[in-house]
């Protein structure tokens, strides 16, 4: 049995949720960026998460001494993907990037969606901190047996 398994799992989730918050912040920061490095309007990014299959020493030890099977490994970011939907056209003939009809293609960032994502990742972060505290408390209680 890995003593700190629960804490490690919650820690992996904190890392993943923090990355989600970072990416959301980048989307919000670039909500008005009509020209990116590739000359195209900024496209909103999204983090895709995936489950970690436990490997390494912990899994080998658990298998060898036969204490429980199928122990979980946590979560990690599978990658950051770009949202391929088109942003809306805004009439702004004075803009240097306006097309012949005077419209500018804006980024596909919807600030409301980003705010909701931000709240979601923030609450998920809190939930995992609570889980981590519960794990810590459990280990402390078990250690109290020695007193």
């Amino acid at each position, binding site marked *: 049995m890995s003593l700190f398994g629960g804490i490690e799992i919650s820690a992996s989730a904190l890392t993943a949720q923090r990355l989600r918050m970072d990416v959301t912040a980048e989307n919000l920061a670039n909500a008005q960026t009509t020209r990116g490095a590739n000359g195209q309007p900024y496209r909103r990014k999204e983090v895709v998460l995936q489950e970690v299959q436990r490997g390494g020493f912990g899994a080998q030890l658990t298998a060898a001494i036969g204490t*429980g099977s199928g122990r979980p490994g*946590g*979560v990690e970011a599978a990658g950051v993907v770009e949202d391929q939907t088109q942003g809306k056209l805004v009439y702004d003939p004075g803009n240097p990037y306006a097309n012949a009809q005077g419209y500018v293609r804006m980024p596909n960032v919807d600030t409301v969606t980003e705010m909701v994502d931000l709240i979601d990742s923030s609450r998920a972060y809190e939930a995992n901190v609570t889980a981590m505290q519960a794990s810590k408390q459990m280990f402390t209680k078990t250690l109290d*047996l020695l007193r």
Partner: protein
Amino acid sequence: MLFDTTQLALERSISGAAQRQEALAANLANADTPGYQRVDVDFHGALAAAMGSADPRSAVAQTTFATQADGSVGAVRADGSTVDVDAESAKLAANALEQESAVQVLHARLGILKSAMGVS
């Protein structure tokens, strides 16, 4: 035979609760993972089966627990994840209390043994 079946069962249930804690923490960690299926550990069931066997003492001592996918819950999120954060948090809190109560009872029983041995 210093430790009786109850003592062994308490020890195994603390271990089971620790394993279940890992499973529930993993569920919470994967709340935003598309298609994730929640896992759980039925250590109550495994221990109850061991207690009901012909030789409960050795059966309990050798009980190990399996972390298994829980297919009883349908998808609760649009991305196919079966994790309900509220339900997981409630289970996490209940599991921590179960573990604590097992530790308290084990502690009290160890205290009885100690006083019988004359050590304080």
